[in-house]
């Protein structure tokens, strides 16, 4: 860390940072530019639109294929997140705080499911959901999403819960707080950041999924955006739906960018906590 090397070091880290920014953002930049091209210039092979237009956006919001899919994506991801976080919080509390045989078994099981290949159960689920009337419904997707996010949620939450100074609960009760007050005024605020972080990670998973969405839905009733845009029809038989797909792609990326901008620290903390301490 000699002072003389400071100039080159700043330059070095500056270029490293720049390389990361270009690496991470360029594909997003390109598809965003594509989405603003007018239908006539969409395939002109230019990076920056010659003819800026928002027509692709007004097009997709006129199509129920997209608006219904957006509604399904939001609803399904939010419900799956809430259920997964509640179930995982209960289990993680037990794992972090209570002593019981079977703890290792539960953690190993969660780890095994984290490695489980979803494609292996798509066939049976397809068959089961059709018999149970869950095919092409919201619960038909919510159930697999919450299942596949439970391992991540349990690991992340139990890592966070282990860090909470639980003595404070007793201390509050000694000071005259009721058990409910001790929980809601002392423990809940301490647990909230971990729960929130876990919720973000679960939401990203559910928002992202394609395998289940494309296999277990067939209509606007439950199709999510990733499945819908993979099957977007062109405006005519001879026209590629490139512009609509690009615009839809940008729309589904917006929530992710907002979450990342506001909660970068939490997401990094959540992913690293689950990895190290889980």
């Amino acid at each position, binding site marked *: 860390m000699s002072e003389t090397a400071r100039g080159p070091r*700043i330059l070095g*880290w500056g270029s490293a*940072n720049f390389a*990361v*920014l270009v690496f*991470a953002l360029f594909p997003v930049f390109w598809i965003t530019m*594509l989405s603003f091209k007018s239908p006539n210039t969409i395939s002109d*092979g230019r*990076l920056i639109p010659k003819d800026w237009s928002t027509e692709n956006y007004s097009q997709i919001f006129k199509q129920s294929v997209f608006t219904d899919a957006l509604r399904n994506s939001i609803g399904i991801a939010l419900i799956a997140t809430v259920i997964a976080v509640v*179930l995982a919080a*209960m*289990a993680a509390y037990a794992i972090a*705080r*209570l*002593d*019981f*045989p*079977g703890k290792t078994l*539960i953690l190993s099981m969660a780890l095994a*499911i*984290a*490695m489980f*290949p*979803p*494609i*292996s*159960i*798509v*066939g*049976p*689920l397809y*068959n089961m959901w059709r018999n149970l009337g869950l095919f092409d419904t919201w619960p038909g997707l919510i*159930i*697999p999403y919450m299942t596949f996010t*439970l*391992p991540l949620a349990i690991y992340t939450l139990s890592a966070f819960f282990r860090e909470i100074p639980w*003595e404070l*609960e*007793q201390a509050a009760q000694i000071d005259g707080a009721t058990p409910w007050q001790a929980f809601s005024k002392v423990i809940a605020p301490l647990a909230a950041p971990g729960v929130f972080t876990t919720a973000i990670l679960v939401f990203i998973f559910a928002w992202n999924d394609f395998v289940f969405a494309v*296999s277990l839905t067939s209509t606007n009733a439950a199709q999510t*955006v*990733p499945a819908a*845009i*993979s099957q977007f029809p062109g405006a005519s038989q001879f026209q*590629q739906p*490139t512009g609509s*797909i*690009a615009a839809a*792609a940008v729309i589904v990326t917006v929530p992710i*960018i907002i979450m*990342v901008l506001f909660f*970068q*620290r939490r*997401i*990094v903390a959540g992913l*690293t*906590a689950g*990895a*190290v301490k*889980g």
Partner: protein
Amino acid sequence: MSATSVAEAPARSGRAPKSETDRSKAERKLAWMLCAPAVIVMVAVTAYPIVYAFYLSLLRADLRFPDDRTWNGLNNYGTVLSSSLWWSDVWHTVIITVISVAIELVLGMLLAITMHRALFGRGLVRTAALIPYGIVTVVAAFAWRFAWSSAVGGFVPKALGFSYDPLDPTHPFWNYFVVIATEVWKTTPFMALLLLAGLTLVPEELHEAARVDGASAWQRFWRITVPLMKPAILVALLFRTLDAFRIFDSVFIISNGPNPKLETVSILGYNQLLNRLNLGLGSAVSVLIFLMVAVIAFLFVKGFGTSLAQQRGEK
């Protein structure tokens, strides 16, 4: 833990051992009740279907002929394992997995070091890196396909002066290139975050001491950072290998229709199950994928079991 034992202490000292077993019994009961819903969901939605998939794989079950269901023994497995289609798809999957995970390990390490040690702009770098992590895989695949496909007027073939469409199925090299690039772009940040977790555990004093002793940055990286990070590296490799092996979304989007030279095992399973509706053969493929993933996981855990356990803070 300390909190509960403090609270239990007076109760323990004042009463007979029986109350202690009552208490731990109650604790155990509460713990099981809290874990039960999560465990039941996980078993019902993964263990049961995989058993069901195994059962279906032993039948001649074709949804186009629902009444014609007969016991078929292991014949479906024979059909799959003796077909060249299955083995070429396994080979495609292995190529994609090995190359992308290897590149991701190198880039992920560089990214993790940048996120960890950059003199300035760490927040910016972390935020930018999380965007590929969070982005929908289908969107990432479309972004890369649209950039590279001449058919939709991508800028890359034009800029590089390609006389043909690199994403046409007749150019497997470029097909693989784009799939692997998509995979690397999308998941390097995840790899980097897992490695960052390990990087933060390396004590700064060790680096200081080595620096005083005259070790170069390169020596310090190989002699201090890498050995201490070994568990984190193994966890990252395990998760990414298993994840890459079940690659589906990006291949599905970038293939844009049948592309036998790029087909992976997950795509094969999907086609058998949901396009051909052949539950018997499709389930056999599903079970085989499951077994391969289990074997990879087993080899990792067996080979590096102790470091994995260290990483997880168990004994």
